[in-house]
Every structure is written in structure tokens, then in C-alpha cells.
């Protein structure tokens, strides 16, 4: 019997993550304290300017408003923007992880795709028309597609563990990016492209990455839960042999998930190009770990068969909230990596504990059911 008050976590496993986010948000709001921010007003021409006020002596001074250190529009959009890049990739990597695979090259794919797109667009200069931007986006996504496909092809063809292959390509892709750029940063993209990605600005922040993240999450969720291939992704992670015996084209599905992983890195790269306006071969260093951590915190099991797109996004949000929280609460920045590491391990332990409990409940249920079944059937006839 389940009480109506208890959340049904078996139907909505991401509920726990939402609660964690809520609790984190409340804690950060309460303990973050207040901070003074310059007061801005929007003029008739739509321009934002500093608001002025008269102080006690009647002089004009810049006005300030007190805002909560965490719960204010700027911090929240900042988190949303920072999360977007990781969350988009986490959705892709979750697909890979559900098949019991792993993609360590995701940060390098991000860098290589960004660099290629940057090199393409910078040829046309800042005044180029929209076609240059469209071309740049296509190049970036195409490169990431090829990188993902290469990962997949090698994993399937050589039948090697994805850890090995993507560990190799992690170095190779970044190396190619370095060779292409000579280690230089590349900028000078069409202004229209940059404006597009940065529009909807609050202060200096844009909502476009957030919107793209939500779109990727929705598409990922539909792919995994509604489509035939999505079902097959889970099946392969749950039991590859049984999947093959059921006629699933395992190699094809595996290839597909690595392509998806690569393309999500490409989408993130497109956003980064527009947002930061430059790319270099050193971009996205170490992103693979943050992304995988996000996926795992979001409920993906490294043993395969478990995970969801929404979980990946929520996991990435939790990690970003913690990173931001460290700054807000005033813990020295240098501790941030340690805290992140502790959080990842704790999250996975909690998940294990949760699974242990549900396993025990299942055991108790079936033992009970069996007992009833045994008692209702005839007792064995003694043999003379």
C-alpha cells in the first residue's frame, strides 16, 4: 500500500533530484545572505542605465538595491547558462552510458568542433551575412558527428571497451584541434551570429543556451522513452546477449549512441562559439568528467540499463548549483573540486542505497506472494 502523500519514485525517479535541487536552492538562499547590486532602470529608448538617487546631502549618487545573494535573476540565469553547456552534453553521454558504454572524448569533440566552426566563420569576418553563420553551425555539428561516428565505428569494429577507444580519441581530437590552430585562439565571427546567441539578455546574460538545453532534453527524453531505438538502448545496457538474441542490431544502436554523444558536444560548441566569440584547442578541458558526473548524479548507471534525459539535465544543474554555491557561501574557490568530488560519490551512494531498499522490498513481496501460492496449492503427497 502506498500512501497518497508519498511520491511514487518508481514512476518518477527524477523526483528525488528535484527535491535535492529545491533543498539546495533553499539552503543557498538562506545562507547566501544579501548583496548590494547597482540599481538599473530601463529608459524610454530601451537602454539600461544606472539609476541615481539623492543622498542625505542632496547629491546625486548611484543607487543600489539589496538582493539575495543566490535567489536573484542574475545568479539564476548565470547558473542556467553555465549549466546549459554541460547539461546538453550530459543528455548525449547518458544515452551512451545507458548502453553500458562511456565517452571520455566528449570534451575534446567539443573543442575540435568549436575550433573547426570558428575557423570556417572567421574567414568571413564580422560583417558576413547569415549564410556564413549557418555554414559555421553546419561545420561544427558535422565535425562532432564525424567524431562521434568514428568513436562508434571503432568500438563496434574492434570490439574494444569504449573506455579505451574514447581515451585514445580524447587525446587525438584535441591534438588535431591544436595542430589546426597552432594553439591560437580563433575569433572574429559574424556579428549577427553572436547577437543571435546572446539575445534575450538580462544584464550581460542570455537565455538562448537555456532554451536549447530544454529542447535537447525534450528531444532526448522522447528518443529514450518513446522511440523503438530508445527502448533498444535500454535493452542493450540491461543485457546485451538477450538483446542480440531478440534480433536487435546491437552494433547499429551502439554506433548511434556515440553519434548522439558527439552531436550533443557539437551543439554545445555552437552555443559556446556564439556566446564567447572565440574558440581554442584548450576549450572544454576536463568537461568529460563534469558531464559524466552530471549523468551519473542524474541516475545513469555505469553498469548500463538505467538513466534518463531529464535526470542528466537535473544532475548537471545540481553540480552547477554546488559550484556556484561554493562561491556564494564563501568557501574558497580552491575547494570547489573537492566538494564536487564528494557530492558525486555521495549522490551515487544514495542511489545505491535507494536501490538496495527497493530490492529488499521486492524480495519481501515475492517471498510473501510465493508463500501464499504454496499454501493454497496441495501439499505434496507423501510417497509410501
Amino acid at each position, binding site marked *: 500500500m502506498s500512501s497518497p502523500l508519498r511520491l511514487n519514485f518508481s514512476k518518477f525517479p527524477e523526483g528525488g533530484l528535484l527535491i535535492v535541487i529545491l533543498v539546495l536552492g533553499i539552503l543557498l538562499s538562506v545562507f547566501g545572505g544579501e548583496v548590494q547590486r547597482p540599481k538599473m532602470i530601463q529608459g524610454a529608448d530601451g537602454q539600461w542605465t544606472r539609476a541615481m538617487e539623492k543622498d542625505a546631502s542632496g547629491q546625486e549618487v548611484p543607487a543600489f538595491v539589496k538582493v539575495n545573494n543566490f535567489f536573484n535573476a542574475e545568479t539564476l540565469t548565470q547558473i542556467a547558462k553555465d549549466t546549459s553547456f554541460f547539461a546538453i552534453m550530459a543528455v548525449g553521454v547518458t544515452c551512451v552510458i545507458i548502453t553500458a558504454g562511456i565517452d571520455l572524448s566528449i570534451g575534446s569533440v567539443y573543442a575540435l568542433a568549436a575550433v573547426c566552426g570558428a575557423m570556417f566563420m572567421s574567414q568571413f569576418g564580422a560583417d558576413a551575412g547569415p549564410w556564413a553563420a549557418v555554414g559555421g553551425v553546419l561545420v561544427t555539428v558535422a565535425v562532432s558527428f564525424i567524431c562521434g561516428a568514428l568513436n562508434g565505428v571503432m568500438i563496434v569494429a574492434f570490439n574494444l571497451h569504449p573506455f579505451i577507444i574514447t581515451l585514445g580519441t580524447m587525446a587525438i581530437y584535441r591534438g588535431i584541434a591544436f595542430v589546426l590552430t597552432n594553439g591560437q585562439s580563433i575569433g572574429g565571427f559574424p556579428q549577427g551570429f553572436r547577437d543571435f546567441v546572446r539575445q534575450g539578455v538580462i544584464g550581460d546574460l542570455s537565455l538562448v543556451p537555456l532554451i536549447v538545453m530544454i529542447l535537447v532534453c525534450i528531444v532526448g527524453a522522447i528518443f529514450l522513452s518513446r*522511440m523503438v531505438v530508445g527502448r533498444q538502448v535500454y535493452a542493450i545496457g540491461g*543485457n546485451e546477449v538477450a538483446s542480440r*538474441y531478440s534480433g536487435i542490431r546491437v552494433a547499429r544502436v551502439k554506433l548511434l549512441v556515440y553519434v548522439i554523444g558527439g552531436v550533443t558536444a557539437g551543439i554545445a560548441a555552437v552555443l559556446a562559439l556564439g556566446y564567447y566569440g572565440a574558440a581554442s584547442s584548450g576549450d572544454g578541458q576536463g568537461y568529460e568528467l563534469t558531464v559524466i558526473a552530471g549523468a551519473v548524479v542524474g541516475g545513469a548507471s555505469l553498469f548500463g540499463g538505467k538513466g534518463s534525459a531529464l535526470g542528466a539535465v537535473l544532475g548537471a544543474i545540481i553540480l552547477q548549483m554546488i559550484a556556484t554555491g561554493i562561491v556564494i557561501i564563501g568557501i574558497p574557490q580552491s575547494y570547489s573540486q573537492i566538494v564536487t568530488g564528494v557530492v558525486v560519490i555521495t549522490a551515487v551512494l544514495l542511489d545505491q542505497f535507494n536501490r538496495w531498499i527497493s530490492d529488499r522490498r*521486492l524480495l519481501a513481496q515475492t517471498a510473501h506472494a510465493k508463500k501464499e501460492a504454496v499454501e493454497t496449492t496441495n501439499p505434496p503427497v507423501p510417497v509410501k
Partner: protein
Amino acid sequence: MPFLTVEHITKFFPGVRALDDVSVQFEKGSVHALMGENGAGKSTLGKIIGGIYTPDQGTISIDGREVRPTDPLTAQKLGVAIVHQELVFCPNLSIAENLQLGTMPANRGFVERRQLRERAQSLMSEIGVDIDVNTLIAELTTGQEQMVQIAAAVGINANIIIFDEPTSSLSVNETKHLFDLIGRLKARGTTMIYVSHRMEEIFQIADTVTVLRDGRHVATEAIAETNRERLIRQMVGRDVLIQRPKHLDLKPGEEVLRVENLSSMGQFENVSFSVCRNEIVGMAGLVGAGRTAVAKAVFGLDKRETGNVYIKGKRLILGNVNRSMRERVGYLPEDRKKEGLVLMMNISDNVSLPHLGTFSRFGFVDERRELAEVEKLTKRLRVKAPSLESVTAGLSGGNQQKVAIAKWLARTCDLLIVDEPTRGVDVGAKAEIYQLLDEVACQGVAILMISSELPELLSLSRRIIAMREGFVTGELPYEQFSQESVLNLMA
């Protein structure tokens, strides 16, 4: 006074009560056989004594003292060792190293190689086995490996040794060797528990026999006071009433499967046979005879075979599961947990897995249609589960097997290959599965049934094909069916 006593042992597994209030006494220096059908709980009892499982209820006492072997290591300290049927050693290390893994003779962290070898040598000669102790475990046959396991048991001064289906993959010669060894251990006063379902062996070596059925103790008797028929009756309990299957009254229809000179290196050679509509053809043979390999080849899971397979007269290009499935071939694998089901998925996901294409539109799963279809099937097969969303890992063996079968009934097959369809399934589910297979055959499906249970083969098949060591040794029509005639062909 008995040397080893187990009292009121009860053990639950997810979905099954494996043992139910079992009490047995074992005498010193004797061979005590534990018998029962698959799933009767005999292996579980052996493993509980050996510390691999802990009982949920009940006590174990050795030499009058109550003990609690919570893991294999504590069991070993109590003098209990298990000889497993599967690999327990590190295959990449030598016999000598494996025999002393925990007690490696060393001097300041460096292995004393000579001492290591000599100690192993003395253990091996103690049980009278002559194998070079520097041989890697990977290079041994299963039989030799078992000898090493016994040597290890002697090495820890075990006075209770449990043999878990030791002969299931041994050759005749190796079996003889093993029995000699058991005789010698008996003379030393070792208590041996011999888990098996092979009747002949029991009468050869056991002193006492205990029969279990559905996790319950049925009888413990001296071997001299019982006989084969009596044991069978005890094991089966009520007679499993297999009614005369209805498909036998139909005339076999069109030939669905024809296999011609099919060979696969090291697996089977020159296999030829055919299966028609409305027919269940049994395949008999010992483990390793190549029956499963043939089935897998027909289903497209083997890429190296040569020869021809025809489905409804059309030559099937082998080595591709999807091509075989397109010709409406279905395959129920012998190991439902490893090959048949995705245990972490629910019933409906498992059943629809091979046919997702038919339940979908534009690549999206049509869940309403899927659920409706699965519900029809699970009702027909009488799968007992809380709901279709129940995870298959939590179902009992019989219900899991029904789900695995349902996978191939979701779309009509022309040829259904079932590999050990009732392995590890309780008596009730067994009868239901028999009835179902008969029903399916009557509907015009050709069924090839691989089974290691003779009664099953004899009562359900129209013809029996026997295999031995990769060759088809003969084919028996219904009129010539008898235990002896099949056994002659397969062993």
C-alpha cells in the same frame, strides 16, 4: 551420532522459496547423495552447508556443535569445502599457485617457489593424481580441474566435501577417476555430500540418499533400501500427468526447416534433419553434444558454419539473426537469465523486444497497442505477476520462462526452437508449458525442442533426433520411443 546435521533450514530467493524446513543428518565417512529435479533445492542446500548462501532459518551443526558458515572462508575453517562444477580458480595462474593462493609460502614478500611447488605436489599425490603442478589452470580439462579442487579441499583438511553436480561436464573416463577418488576419500573418513540428478551414479557411489522436491524434504534412505523407480516417484511426487499431446493426431504439414550437412568447427559436423508443421521434434543428447550450437546456427548466431539450411524450401543465409527472424524463426535460449530476458526491464518491454517494429509507427512505440498485445499473451500463458510493469528479475523461474516464451508468440513463428523449455521451472508451470507447446504445434508451427529431460522428450515429441559429440547419431520415430533406445543413441 551424525557428524553433520542441518535442521529446519529455510531459504528464500526472490520469487521462490528454495528450501522449506529441511532437516537432514550426514554420517561420517559416507557418501550422502542429495537428489531432486531441477529447482528442487538440492544445490541450494549444498551451498548453504558450504557457506555460499546463508539460510533464512534453521541451524547447522558439525560434530554436535552449532556453526554458522556465513561465507566460504568460514566454512573452510570449519572443514567444509565445495567442489564446484564451474571455474573457481584463476585460470592465468598455475595449479601450485592456485592451491596456495591464500597461504603463499613467502620470505619477506618474495614467493618461495620451491616450497610452493613441493607443497602442491604433496597435495596432488595425496589424492593420487598425477598432473604437473606448474600447469596453468586454463590448460586443464574440466575433470582435471575438479581434481585440483579436491586437492585444495584436502589441503585445508576438509572433513566435509560437497560435490555440486560434479559429473555434468565430465567424460566417462574422468567420471571413473572421480569415483575412485571419492572411494579413497571415504576410506579416510571424509563426509561427502553428492549433489546430482543422475540416477546411475547415485547407485554406484552413494551410501545414503536424500530426495528433495520443491524445496521440501521427501525422504532419506539407505541406498540398499531403495531403487530407481522409487526414487523417481519421490523426486516427481505426483506423476506429472503429461496427457497425450494433441499434435500427434494431426498429420505433419509442410516441411518448414531442412538442415543439410551443417557443420561448425569444433561444435558439430554434418548435421542433417528436418522439422514440419504441426510437429514437435525432440533433440536428445548430453551437455556438449552440440544441440544448442545447431539451434544457434539456425537462428543466425553462428558465423562460421558451412552447409545449408532451408526454411520453407528457401535457402537461409546464415549468420544473421534478423534474416532468420524475417523467415519467422524464433529461439528460446536455454539460459533465460543470461540470454532470454533483460532482467531489469519489465514484462511488457521484454515480450515486445523482438517485435518492437510491429508495435511502432515512424519509429515511435505505440504503447497502447503494445500493452494490449502483451496482456493478451500473458493471459494466455497465465503469467502470474502483480502487473505488466513488474520487473522480470522479481518473477519466479516459471513465470520468467513464460515471459521468455511469450516473446516468440507475439508474432506467429513458422519455426520455434525451444532450448530446455522447462529448466528450473516448478511442476505446475512445467505442465502449462507442455500444454502450450502442444497448442502452438497444433496451430501449425514447427517446433524443435532441445531437452535434457528424457520424460519430456518421450512424451511430447513426434520424432527424436539424438546427438553425440557433434554428430547426429540417429532419429527415432514415435513407435520406437523408449528410455533405452534414446539413451543408446545419446551416450
